[in-house]
Every structure is written in structure tokens, then in C-alpha cells.
């Protein structure tokens, strides 16, 4: 039981990661692919933050009378990764907008048909 509770976080992280991966490789709509990629990304954030959590710990802001803090390093890494993530997502969405303007569609198979690439 303790093993299950102690690993539940990691298993849900892996589940979310796989849902994201499945959405990316099995769905043809480009916007949906990007959302799948974002789910994958958020699951990686959870992996890092879960690793940094200490039972009974407080947020890593030094205060008197608090002995146990959670690990600040994953927080720093993920904090910057979230903002960088939205910037790169915006770049991907901009590419989708240009693809729509050029091909008139955002479905992967229709783009392949127009290019005669399959």
C-alpha cells in the first residue's frame, strides 16, 4: 500500500505522458497535435516537481521555525521551462497559421494529398 501511494504520482505522470504521445502520433489535426505535445510537456513538469517534494516540507522560502523545505532546484528549472514552453508553443501555432494560409487546411492527410507525398 505504501509502495502504491509512494509511486502513484510517477504512474500518473507516465499515463499523462503516454496520452500526450498518443495524441501526437495518432491524431491528424495539427492544433490537436500541439495540445498533445503540451500535455506531454506538463507531465514532465510534474515528474520534476514530484521528485523535489519532501513529506512535511514547506515551500522553499526561508523562515524562522521551519526545518524542512522542498527542493528548490526543480522549481527553478520548471518555472523557466513553463514560460519558454509557451513561447515555443506560440511558434508552433504560428507555423500552423502559415500552413493553413498556404494549403487551406490543417489536417495532416489533406496536406499529404495536396503535396502528393504519400
Amino acid at each position, binding site marked *: 500500500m505504501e509502495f502504491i501511494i509512494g509511486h502513484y504520482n510517477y504512474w500518473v505522470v507516465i499515463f499523462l505522458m503516454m496520452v500526450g504521445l498518443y495524441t501526437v502520433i495518432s491524431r491528424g489535426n495539427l492544433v490537436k497535435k500541439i495540445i498533445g505535445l503540451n500535455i506531454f510537456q506538463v507531465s514532465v513538469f510534474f515528474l520534476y516537481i514530484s521528485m523535489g517534494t519532501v513529506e512535511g516540507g514547506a*515551500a522553499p522560502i526561508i523562515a524562522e521555525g521551519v526545518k524542512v523545505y522542498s527542493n528548490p532546484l526543480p522549481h527553478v528549472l520548471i*518555472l523557466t521551462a*513553463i*514560460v519558454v514552453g509557451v513561447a515555443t508553443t*506560440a511558434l508552433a*501555432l*504560428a507555423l500552423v*497559421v502559415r500552413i493553413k494560409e498556404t494549403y487551406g487546411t490543417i489536417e495532416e492527410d489533406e496536406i499529404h494529398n495536396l503535396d502528393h507525398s504519400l
Partner: protein
Amino acid sequence: MKPNLILHVIAKFLIPLIILFALYVQFHGDFGPGGGFQAGVIFSAAIILYSLVFGLESGEKIIPHHWLRILASLGVVIYAGVGIESLFLGGNYLDYTILGSNQIAGQHLGILLVELGVGITVAAAMLILFFAFAGRGRE
């Protein structure tokens, strides 16, 4: 867009509070949760809310596009400039200790300036992203 009274009143009430909160998060980031990244994003959220409720043109009037481009570069320049300043004063790159009279004062000044640079760049970059996407819809 059809003007909506409730949206206008609520937005006028909320936007100053959001900007105030962004400034609090920016400058209180040393002591509580917060910092440049969060403050920049919250600040740009206020401007985005204004543009969504009152129309894109009024949003662009607050911060014109060329300002945004200058601000986005300015933040990176402030950050890198703090590093170069510490080089000139005889320390290592981004070694803030040399900036002040003692270690604590130097680190405080350095962290404040660097977070300011981060906040300016993040706010301007998020607004550039939003205006690029929203402006594309106009013919």
C-alpha cells in the same frame, strides 16, 4: 464587437488590480513567491484582457508595436549589461557581489536588476505573441 456593459465594468475594475499585483510580484519576489517571469506574464495578461474587452486597436494604443520591440530587446540588454558591468568592475560575468559595497548589497542589487530585465522581456514578448496572432485576423 458589440460593447458589453458587464464586461466593461468588471474589466475596468480588475485591470488596475492585476497590474498592481504584477508589480508586487515583481518587486516582492525576493521575499515571497514571485519574480520576473511571473510578473511579466501577469502584466501582459492585464493588457491582453484590456485588448480582448475594449478591442485590439485600443490595446495597441497603450503600447505601440515599436515600443514592444524595443522593450523586448531592452530586457535582454539589461540582463546581459549587469553581467558586463560586473566584468568591468573586475569580477566574473554575472558575479553580483562586486556591484555593491558588501556581498549582501551587491547580490540584492544584481538580483533586482536581473529580475527587472526578465520581467520586461517576458511581458513584451508575450504581448508581441498576442498582437501577432490577433492582428493576423484583420484584412
